[in-house]
Structure formats: structure tokens, C-alpha cells
């Protein structure tokens, strides 16, 4: 599986409709609605070395099995609030009580002397477009009620050569050019090329395009 994330800050709330129109010839179907939430946390410790990073990001997806990815520097963890996701073995041997909460909740309650939440960016009720080549998720992004831009998540299931995927992304970029959008951030990198983890890499791409 490969993915790429595009964030178009210089757009209007109606740009998503233009994008739908330009895509319409390739469209096989319009699928489920989706949403995500992106939060930034800041480490409040005072005596950190000046060059070390203080920011940590967490991204919760409504798709991708309702998972949350939390990324700081080069490390990421995937967490879930879904009781069904807890491996049965961990419940049977008493590690888990079967009642789990979100990692964000742990951060904002028990670790709030270490970490403070700085910003929250949300994309609600986005559209999912299926083409022959890609699954494209598009949503308008808001921060505290204010419009921030348009976000596109491109995803390709199954084993696809990196080159093929790149070409499919190029095609989408051409479409964006057709509707007059040339200034945007795009990321298709993975956290570690040698050790790919789809969910972590996708979250990493969100961080790269949404980070101020």
C-alpha cells in the first residue's frame, strides 16, 4: 500500500467541488464519508536542549479502523479506542482490563503537566472517490471553526511499484493544475524507507503537510 497527502492552503470551501468535477471522468464510485482530527501537543519542560523538538502530533482517522497515530520525531505509536482491537491474548492474561481509552485522553489528563495541546485541525464529513487507480479522500479542513484549506489523501491498495504510484499522483497533480491550483504542499515520504508501516507513514505525511 502506498499513500500521499496533499494540503492546499490557498483554496476556497468550494474548491472541493471543482476537484470533484475535474475527477468525474475517472470516477468509478463515490464511497463513504470520512473525517480526521489532527492535534499538536507541546512539551512544557523548560530545560530541554535548545535544538530538540518540542512538538508531538496525533492524527485520528475515522477510516483506517478508527486508529490514532501519535508521532514525535522518529518514533510513532498506533493506538486504538476500539475494544475489538485489543488482542484477546492481552485480555486473557490480565494485561488489559478490556476498557481502554484514547491515548490523547491519557495525554490531556495524566500527562498534562508535561504536554499541552496547542492546536486542533479537523476535517469532517469528507468525500471518498474511487478511481481505477486510486482511492482519493478529500475534505475541507477547519481549525476552531475557521476554514484552513483543502486536504487530499491519495491511497493505493495492494502491491504497486513506487514508480507506478508516483505516476498516478502526477496525474492528480495535473488535474489540480487544470483547476488552477499550483501552490500546495505534498508529501509521499515514509518515516523509514527500510521499514514501512502504512498507518504510521500516512500519519507522517499528514504531519508534514499540516505542520505550520
Amino acid at each position, binding site marked *: 500500500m502506498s499513500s500521499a497527502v496533499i494540503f492546499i492552503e490557498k483554496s476556497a470551501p468550494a474548491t472541493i467541488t471543482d476537484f470533484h468535477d475535474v475527477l468525474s471522468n475517472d470516477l468509478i464510485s463515490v464511497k463513504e464519508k470520512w473525517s480526521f482530527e489532527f492535534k499538536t501537543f507541546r512539551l512544557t519542560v523548560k530545560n530541554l536542549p535548545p535544538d530538540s523538538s518540542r512538538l508531538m502530533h496525533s492524527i485520528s482517522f475515522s477510516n483506517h479502523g478508527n486508529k490514532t497515530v501519535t508521532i514525535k520525531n522518529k*518514533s*510513532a*505509536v*498506533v493506538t486504538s479506542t476500539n475494544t475489538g482491537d485489543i488482542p484477546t491474548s492481552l485480555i486473557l*492474561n490480565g494485561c488489559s482490563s*478490556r476498557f481502554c481509552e484514547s491515548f490523547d485522553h*491519557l495525554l490531556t489528563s495524566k500527562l*498534562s503537566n*508535561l504536554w499541552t495541546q496547542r492546536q486542533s485541525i479537523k476535517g469532517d464529513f469528507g468525500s471518498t472517490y474511487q478511481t481505477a487507480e486510486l482511492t482519493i479522500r478529500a475534505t475541507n479542513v477547519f481549525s476552531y471553526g475557521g476554514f484552513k484549506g483543502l486536504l487530499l489523501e491519495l491511497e493505493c491498495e495492494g502491491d504497486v511499484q513506487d514508480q507506478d504510484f508516483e505516476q498516478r499522483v502526477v496525474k492528480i497533480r495535473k488535474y489540480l493544475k487544470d483547476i488552477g491550483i499550483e501552490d500546495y504542499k505534498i508529501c509521499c515520504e515514509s518515516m523509514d524507507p527500510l521499514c514501512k508501516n502504512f498507518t504510521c507513514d500516512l500519519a507522517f505525511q499528514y504531519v508534514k503537510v499540516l505542520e505550520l
Partner: protein
Amino acid sequence: MVLQLCLTSAIDDDSYELCTSTLCNLSGNPPVLFSNFTAMFKPNSSFDIEQTNSKNQLIEQNRLKLCRGVPLDALENDSEKRDYRMLKKFADDDLKGFDLQILQKMLHGSIDVDDMEVDEEKPSEQSWILSISDIPAAGSNRKVSSQAIIESTILSTGGSSPSVIAFLSELGYTLDYQLLTVGVKFNMKHNVYLELSKIWRVEGGEAQQLTKGGFLVKAFVNVAKSTDIKSINHGTNALLHLQKELSGYIDLTIPDRKSMDSRLENLNDI
């Protein structure tokens, strides 16, 4: 936030066999063998950490508990012998051939590149349970210990420093101490679980048994919400019923709440 109601006791090594068969009869279920690895983390001591958050609420520094199962075949190769009787061989520090390296591999990830095929691992082999517990509620008229625990599930880790210990160090936490638990668990009536366990402290490639000469006995009920009074009363009564049933044989009592306090400076203010 889960509320764990519990009562504890201890038995000696010689009573183990009779005790398991008694509990087996009482519960109507065979004992389930389990083994866990627990790593406790504390806030990085080189950090200058505020005691209050941005809303000026006092937040006490608490240890983080990271927990995961240990494959039972690593403890006992012979599947025929892998039942509750297996515990009898662990009378002292010696773990009878168990490779402590397995625990370090879990925490730090494998250094061997050939082992890094994450896809082939089962989900349970990548998952961890992360939790923080409050000090059990105070009060002299309590009949059982009740402790609030907040728990989160880590499904997998990623990135170019993919180990769970690397992430926790980014989070501001460092390893404090490590425990290995091997025990049996009974599913008693009314959602009460009863565990008999042996615990080792693992440090620098060596293990020291903390339960030498005996077993820790813990009977507990987990209540999903700390506001669910009905379930709490129900759980309390179930535990008290078990306490009465076992009285004279295993005396289940309320554990010392200080010993269950995971705060960093827990000795200063009680």
C-alpha cells in the same frame, strides 16, 4: 477510567497444589496459565517538570506501566508440561532456562535486521497496554481496595526508531524497573478473577524473585466506569462473598494502599 476492586493475600509454596485444586472446584473452571512482562517508566529525571498544567491544576508525577504477555513456550518448551503444575518448578530466582533477552527484545526491538519483518508478527506480538493508576481510594470503612486505572492500547509502533522504549523516551519517560509475572488465573463467579502469581524483578540480565517461598493471591473485579455505583456495589459484594467463602483458608484482605501507589514521591505525603 477503569475501577479495579481487589483483595489480596498470600500462600506458601507447599500449599499451591491443594490451593489450585480447591479453587478449581470452587470456580468450576480449570486454572489458566499466564505470563506477563511489565516495564515501569518514570518521568525523565533530567527534565525540569512543572507540577501544574496550563489550567493550573496540580498534576502529580506518576509512573507509566507498559505491559505485554510473554509467550508461554519460552518458559516451558514441553507443551505437555505447560499447565498450572509448571509453576512448582519456580521456587527461587532461577527461571529454569528462560531467556531474559526475550524481554529486552520486546522493549528495544530486534537489532537483527532479519527479524524486522513486522508484517509476519501477530498483532499481539506488537501490542502493549499502557496504563497509569491512581493511588487506591482512602477511607477506614472500606471493605475492598478500589483503584482507578486509565488504560490505552498501543497496537503497533513505527518510524525509524520504532521501539516502544524510543517512543516513551520522546514522551519524556525513562525505564524505571521491570517485572516478570508467571501465574494462574481462575474465573470465579460474578466476574471475579483470582490470580496466584510469582513475580520476578528483572535487572541487568538477572532475575530476582520477589515472591520467594510463596505466591501472591489477588482477587479482583474490573468495573468499566467509576461512576457506575450499581456495578461497584455488585463487584464489592462478589469479592466479599469470596472472602467469606475462603475465610480460614486464604484470608483475603485489603492491600496497603501505599504499596499500590505509583506516584514518584509517594513517601512524602502519606
